[in-house]
């Protein structure tokens, strides 16, 4: 965008304007997303509980209800308890909120050569997971600075829980990374293009199962029921945000919904094909870069709708779970993480490795041939010696990728991977 603006504006201003637009879009995405999700949560909980939910504000579906709530929260007094550490107490909600927003910086909404992404970080998966882990810091500060015992309990639970759940969450995220051969979210999304059979969730039984482990851990790491121990209202009054009121309190909620959205986005990119629909409709309609800017742009927007739709579905499932299940106890939450999620994630990870090793180049539970994008990665798996002897391997894979109109970046990433694997195989030989 900066390059585009530079045509009309001085370079320094172009950078600033482009940055401001990006940041503004992201903040709006989180804030408006939170508004929509709060409304959605009320509607969904209402329907689940056999009632209507909001109906009055803003017409038919009460769609302005959250805005009315927001206005109410704005006018509420901003209370700080007398015994609190005032600076930390005031700053804590912003820490959470910033961390929640920052995760969106590296999440692409559409792929291709010019992906829709704020900052193309080539270790996107890792960055998003790292930044999501920061949200807990705000919660802990809030709980500690509130000078309330209930808040302190909430903060202690949050710290213990989130730090533990990052382990299986990371393990689950490694599987798509391994299959796509890149930490770049754009690449991971792009390798799943084509039919839904190429989605990594359907790649093999292990990835299918590990998706559910991922979803469980994601629910736990964003503190949603049945893992919402930090705010467990029946035990801890309201946990870490017991002492908060007004706008600061709402920041925690925006952060929570923002995190829910970002882990769901991550799930949809890692496992559910990202911006690629279940059927290659954009290709059928010719909405690709080859057919001009407008067609490409429409294709990208369709991709954005796709990825957001999948993420919203994920968020809805989280809500559905919340209004159905009772809450676990803290020791059971930790046991779920350490006794079930982590070993399961590790086992499925090994399963995925074994599957890929034994059935390279196959997808959809081994029933179909992999698309070309996945081939180049899986070659490394197939036969190390063969790869080593084949001197033209990099070019060959490039030919393949060119033939099926992939993005240059994918090819570049693959090349590095292929080269590395080639060296690896030579090393193995040398060792022998």
């Amino acid at each position: 965008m900066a390059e585009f603006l530079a045509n009309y504006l001085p370079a320094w201003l172009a950078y600033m304007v482009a940055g401001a637009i990006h940041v503004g879009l992201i903040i709006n995405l989180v804030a408006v997303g939170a508004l929509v999700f709060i409304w959605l949560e009320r509607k969904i909980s209402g329907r689940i509980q056999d009632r209507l939910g909001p109906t009055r504000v803003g017409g038919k579906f009460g769609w302005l209800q959250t805005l009315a709530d927001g206005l109410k929260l704005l006018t509420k007094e901003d209370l700080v308890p007398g015994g609190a550490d005032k600076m930390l107490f005031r700053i804590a909600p912003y820490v959470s909120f910033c961390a929640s927003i920052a995760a969106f910086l590296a999440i692409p909404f559409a792929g291709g050569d010019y992906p829709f992404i704020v900052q193309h970080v080539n270790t996107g998966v890792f960055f998003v997971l790292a930044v999501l882990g920061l949200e807990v810091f705000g919660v802990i500060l809030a709980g500690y600075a509130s000078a309330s015992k209930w808040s302190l309990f909430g903060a202690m639970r949050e710290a213990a829980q989130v730090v533990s759940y990052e382990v299986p969450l990371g393990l689950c995220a490694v599987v798509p990374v391994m299959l796509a051969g890149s930490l770049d979210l754009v690449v991971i999304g792009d390798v799943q293009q084509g039919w839904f059979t190429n989605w990594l969730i359907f790649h093999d039984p292990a990835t299918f199962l590990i998706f559910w482990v991922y979803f469980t851990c994601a629910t736990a790491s964003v503190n949603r029921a049945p893992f919402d121990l930090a705010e467990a209202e029946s035990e801890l009054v309201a946990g870490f945000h017991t002492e908060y009121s007004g706008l600061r309190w709402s920041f925690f909620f925006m952060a929570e919904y923002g995190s829910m959205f970002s882990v769901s986005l991550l799930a949809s990119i890692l496992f559910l094909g990202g911006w690629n629909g279940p059927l290659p409709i954009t290709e059928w309609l010719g909405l690709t870069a080859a057919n001009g800017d407008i067609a490409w742009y429409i294709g990208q927007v369709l991709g954005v709708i796709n990825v957001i739709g999948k993420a919203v579905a994920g968020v809805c499932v989280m809500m559905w779970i919340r209004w159905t299940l009772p809450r676990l106890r803290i020791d059971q939450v930790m046991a779920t993480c350490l006794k079930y999620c982590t070993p399961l994630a590790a086992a499925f990870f090994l399963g995925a490795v074994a599957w890929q090793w034994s059935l390279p180049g196959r997808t959809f539970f081994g029933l179909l041939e992999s698309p070309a994008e996945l081939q180049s990665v899986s070659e490394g798996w197939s036969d190390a010696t063969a790869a080593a002897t084949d001197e033209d391997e990099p070019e060959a894979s490039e030919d393949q990728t060119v033939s099926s109109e992939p993005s240059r970046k994918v090819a570049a990433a693959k090349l590095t991977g292929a080269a590395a694997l080639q060296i690896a195989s030579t090393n193995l030989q040398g060792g022998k």
Partner: protein
Amino acid sequence: MGDGIYWPTFFFLLFSALACGFALAVVFSRNVVRMAFYLVMSLASTAGLFFLAGEDFVGAMQLMIYVGGTLVLLIFGVMLTSQKQFVEMKTPAGQWIVGLVTGCALVALLWMAAFETPQWQPISRAEAEAVAVQPTATPIGVALTNGRVDQLDQPDETLRGGMSSYLLPFEIVSVHLLVVLIGAAYLARAKRRSPSAAAPG
């Protein structure tokens, strides 16, 4: 407008100022949790510097390990064990002096190291923009498992084989960390008098 502002330099200065400022705040703060908070900000600014240098992986690593892990655990420990709500720390004069001497020595060392590095001159803008951003995780992963990427152009096959990987040192470090963790947990276990055994005896 000409060249205008060179943004990477601007951000470099911004992040380094933040990192240094918060580092000083850590030193002069007395409240342990505030200290942790300042430390988080300082480390996050350092992570910003890494991102600026194109080392995304190291930056994210910094965030995940130091900010998300170490400091959270630190505050967790303070919350669990503190005698009163907000723990204050006072540094005696002797420790100030020791700290000052150590700190100065470290600064001097870094200073020397920095100025002995030959590339420590600003490169031209054209040069800077010409540097292609490389994937940062792949070489690390490759180096860990099977080969040193920095030695790819080593012509001698046998030499290349010898420098196979960092996997063994990595494993040794991991096991070492595990041992430290278990040791810490063991030391943290408090000893208490058992009421049942004390009553008859």
